[in-house]
């Protein structure tokens, strides 16, 4: 069983927060990661900034813009990841990255270095399963025991889910709503049924993300999802408080505690 898969259990739902690496700089984002893990993160998603993030909403777009104001290099990304990993070696780290930066770096080299830095899974929103590069990347990651985590959306039909199945491991990232990342007030009515179907097709844990921000939403969805992914709401705390690092740390830790405590199995 992969390190990621072992985080999930029937009795509790996992909390998976997200931060954009480099926002506002590469040193401080290590602090943010530390605060989130101390607050109860079970897996941490690390965003690699990209100039053209078409699957992201305004909060993460702005975070990437702030991050890219620092000199970008994949080696800095990998070094920062290693620092986070050395602080909390038992917490699985997952990259969320657009494909171009890793393709440009060379994905065999990237897979090798990411594994050494402590990465245990990859999410690539603009790399659908049915491309030649997925074939190659999947094999490269699999050799190193790194999971390729796929997105499934409300628009993904059953036949496509079955195609994705051959290339998916770790967990499934279920996109709760149409559109891009960002906080939303309402959650789709058929979410529970869709997640149930997804679980049946993949025989993998299914974590829900996109649009979740408040503890009560997280609590409700955690009744049937194996994990809760929160990106924009975490990133907004950094956007609003990043210039005051000690306050930002505190708010991130408190926020992580409030979400983690609300999840199925965590508040008992």
């Amino acid at each position, binding site marked *: 069983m992969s390190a990621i898969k072992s985080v999930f259990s029937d009795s509790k739902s996992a909390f998976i927060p997200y931060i954009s690496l480099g926002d506002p700089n590469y040193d401080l984002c290590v602090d943010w990661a530390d605060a989130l893990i101390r607050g109860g993160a079970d897996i941490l998603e690390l965003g690699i900034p990209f100039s053209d993030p078409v699957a992201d909403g305004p909060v993460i777009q702005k975070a990437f813009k702030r991050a890219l104001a620092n000199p970008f290099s994949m080696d800095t990304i990998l070094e920062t990841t290693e620092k986070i990993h050395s602080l909390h070696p038992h917490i699985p780290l997952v990259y969320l990255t*657009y494909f171009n930066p890793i393709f440009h770096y060379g994905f065999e080299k990237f897979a090798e270095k990411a594994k050494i830095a402590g990465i245990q899974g990859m999410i690539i929103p603009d790399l*659908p399963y049915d491309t030649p590069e997925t*074939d190659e990347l999947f094999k490269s990651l699999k050799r190193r025991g790194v999971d390729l985590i796929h997105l499934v959306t409300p628009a993904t039909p059953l036949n496509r889910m079955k195609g994705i199945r051959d290339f998916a491991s770790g967990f499934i990232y279920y996109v709760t709503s149409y559109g891009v990342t960002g906080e939303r007030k309402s959650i789709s009515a058929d979410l529970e049924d869709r997640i149930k179907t997804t679980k049946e097709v993949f025989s993998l844990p299914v974590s829900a993300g996109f649009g979740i921000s408040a503890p009560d939403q997280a609590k409700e969805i955690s009744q049937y999802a194996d994990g809760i992914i929160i990106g924009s709401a975490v990133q907004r705390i950094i956007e609003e408080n990043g210039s005051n690092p000690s306050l930002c740390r505190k708010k991130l830790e408190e926020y992580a505690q409030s979400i983690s405590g609300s999840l199925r199995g965590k508040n008992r």
Partner: protein
Amino acid sequence: MAKERNFTEKEGYFGDFGGRYSPEILTEALIELEDTYNKLRKDKKFQKDLEFYRRNYIGRPSPLTYAEKLTKAWGGAKIWLKREDLNHTGAHKINNTIGQALIAKAMGKRRIIAETGAGQHGVATATVGALFEFETAIFMGEEDLRRQKLNAIRMQMLGAKVIGVSSGTATLKDATSEAMRDWALNVSNTHYIVGSVIGPHPFPTIVRDFQKVVGDESKKQFKKENDKLPDAVVACVGGGSNAMGMYYAFLNDKKVKLYGVEAGGRGSSPGEHSATMLFGKTGFLHGTKTLVIQDDGGQVVPAHSVSAGLDYPGVGPEHAHLHSSGRVKYETVSDQGALDAFMEVCRVEGIIPALETAHAFRFAKDLAKELGKKKDILICLSGRGDKDVAEVARLVGLSQGDLI
């Protein structure tokens, strides 16, 4: 275990380029579009409708003009112009929007969206929005809204909502990203009319197919007039739709030299040009694998051109393939060269060309001398330059006094 899969041109690849690299939420819409288009392209009623609108609404076939004055002024090969500037709305863009609007209708979509740089694609989309009664939204970078105010006003008059995009460099690249985000949110009722031979499969194929009328007509007209084919064909390339449409008919005519002209901007440093073929590397942008201007970290570098329609840091994947196969030769012309050619074509031939096309003219001027008097050059005059007059006047320092 992963199954072995075979990726062929049929699935949207052009050699090593193309494909479908879009967020999962859009994939079904792209598959639906591909399936619908594959049915419609063989459907007689669809082809009849398309032909009807081409003839009676766009005003096709557009003329082939022998540019006698330019030929004389440049003192070399004969210059022929394919007059896409004479189409309704003033550019080749309407060829594609009419076609895609008919597809959107067939799919039962009520809303259309588009990205636009110079605004010609935005105007063409707003036009078909009015004609076919779609709710229409156009995404346009704030910087381009400044440069292309006239077209923004035209879009609004045609009933479209114009949405300014301030993210990134506030130009075409960012308008494209924003249109993709809107599509992800509204994919069930909205069709995204991509304006060039870019984007995820099937867009590069669909747009090329709707634009190939330019080359098909040119070939027929040129043959009728000269009983031969042109020696060289020249077109400007941003995303590359007018060029792709023009080349397609000539790809197998190996004696016809094909040239694409990109924006050399104001220099060779990153951010100063849009010369993707010269400076781009293989990468992934806006759902396709193509040549992309990017830095050492794989971040997309903002492009620049005096022409809002050319400043895109990528290029259509079929162009990337034609470049790597050597079938088409890609060149650059600077901002200043384009401005000079713009003014020259206005004064010599009595035609105000789009600034995009002015790049093609500037290159053709040198080519005409190189080829000599016995040869013929066909230029795709992709659009008229009304939209550019205020910006050009500002850049060349024409005051109102000079104009009187």
